[in-house]
């Protein structure tokens, strides 16, 4: 697993560089520092913590990654449900989502039961949750409540669980390197978020959808996705792909990631909040940090599963 060390040494080097640049900017700026700079420093500090958490999970291998993403799902679903319209009669369905659906979905991923974990939430939970709500007898805002519950599970549990599921793919010639595939996906998608942020801050002019998100610009999107694809291509040695394939896959994942961020912004705008939560300083909540991964993971998973296994 020498490759994994190379990746993490690279990551630490990038973070050190980022901390250094931000430190110099803060030192040279007028006091007090601008809010952008304060936020940048908070974001970089949070990245140190997130990289540490992921490294720790990788030390424990497949189980570590599954437990990490189970916790991510828990935090994401909690943020999501907080913003939905729950009623007292939803209480047991909601508890079931947290105490049964999350552990079961990740258990199924752990046992590599693809036939069930790929349909457990979209089929069985989809049918069971409205049935339970109907049995309970509260019809007020029925369609709204059950749709929001189903959406929450799909986003926060189903889609996120496809990240650790990558480790279970049996790609010929790639045995024992499933964790590296996860590292590849996270590095490119999160890298794309950072690069879109940087390009948007430096060159952003034309907004893509001012109603949804004032900070997403065409300049940020194109610059971010182009450079993130190059980043993906340069990380091909982590994967079973050729440099070109890695670049294309990274590009697709980053475009999905952008769409995920856009959808998350639309939900937040609808609910009148700026961030999903306050868990990760400078970034907002867990969903603010994982919205791109949510959209990218299932698509990336299925392309790789279809074309490489």
């Amino acid at each position, binding site marked *: 697993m020498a490759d994994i060390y190379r990746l993490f040494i690279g990551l630490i080097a990038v973070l050190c560089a980022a901390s250094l640049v931000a430190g110099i900017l803060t030192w040279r700026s007028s006091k007090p520092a601008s809010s952008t700079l304060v936020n940048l420093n908070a974001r970089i500090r949070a990245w140190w913590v997130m990289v540490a958490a992921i490294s720790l999970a990788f030390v424990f291998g497949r189980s570590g990654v599954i437990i990490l993403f189970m916790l991510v799902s*828990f*935090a994401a*679903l*909690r*943020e999501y*449900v*907080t*913003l939905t*319209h*729950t009623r*007292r009669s939803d*209480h047991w369905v*909601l*508890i079931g989502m*947290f105490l049964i659906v999350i552990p079961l979905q990740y258990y199924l991923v752990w046992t590599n039961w693809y036939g069930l974990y790929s349909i457990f939430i979209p089929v069985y939970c989809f049918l069971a949750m409205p049935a339970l709500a109907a049995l309970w007898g509260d019809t007020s805002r029925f369609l709204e409540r059950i749709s929001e519950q189903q959406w929450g599970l799909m986003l926060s549990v189903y889609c996120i669980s496809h990240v650790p599921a990558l480790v279970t793919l049996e790609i010929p010639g790639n045995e024992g390197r499933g964790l590296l595939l996860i590292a590849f996906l996270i590095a490119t998608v999160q890298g794309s978020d950072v690069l879109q942020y940087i390009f948007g801050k430096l060159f952003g002019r034309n907004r893509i959808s001012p109603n949804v998100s004032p900070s997403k610009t065409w300049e940020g999107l194109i610059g971010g996705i182009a450079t993130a694809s190059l980043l993906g291509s340069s990380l091909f040695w982590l994967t079973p792909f050729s440099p070109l394939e890695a670049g294309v896959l990274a590009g697709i994942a980053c475009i999905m990631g952008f769409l995920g961020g856009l959808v998350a912004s639309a939900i937040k705008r*609808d*609910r*009148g*909040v700026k961030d999903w*939560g*306050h*868990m990760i300083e400078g970034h907002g909540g867990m969903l603010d940090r994982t919205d791109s991964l949510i959209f990218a993971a299932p698509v990336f998973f299925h392309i790789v599963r279809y074309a490489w296994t």
Partner: protein
Amino acid sequence: MQSLAGACLAGLARAITGVIPIWLGTKPSRNQRIYFANHASHGDFILLASCLEPEERARTRAVAGADYWRSNRIRRVMAEDLLRTVLVERNGVERTQDPLDIMLKALDDGQSLIFFPEGTRNMSEEPLLRFRSGLYNLAVARPGVELVPCWIENMSRVLPKGMFLPVPLLCRVIFGAPIAVEPGEDRTLFLHRARQALLDLKPTNNGAGR
């Protein structure tokens, strides 16, 4: 044992609700205080206490209804031994001890109180019920104690009345600026102002809390 139970409960409350205190109108301090808050769930005072610093939490006790918490043995052990609540009898006809005396005794022992001026859990659609007079009586009797309004957000969704398992949802406790009885202010006026001070802390975003 009690401080351990307190620390465990506070940790549990944080793990489930990710609660953060928002010190909007005041800061944590060593002043003796009465934290008065909206009330819709048994989790309310645990959530509020978990937002206080450990030393302040250790000397802060919640005021609760004796008729409810003494009605069976499990509740009695929880309220008296585990949670160290100040139990007062709410029913004016049958009571043997004046609630005000019990609360004043706790204050005179140097303790801070968590107090729910609505007198009961709010099960209505209204955000806040009418305040009972207890808050005014306390404020007049001990003018040196700070009255801090605290808006508890979402706890009624985490643990609604009659449920014993909580749903994990994000909660916040918003602490406002302390208020006091002004010279010449009568009971009705003060209670109205106190209620308004608490309502003013309620966030107005249209998403959470329905």
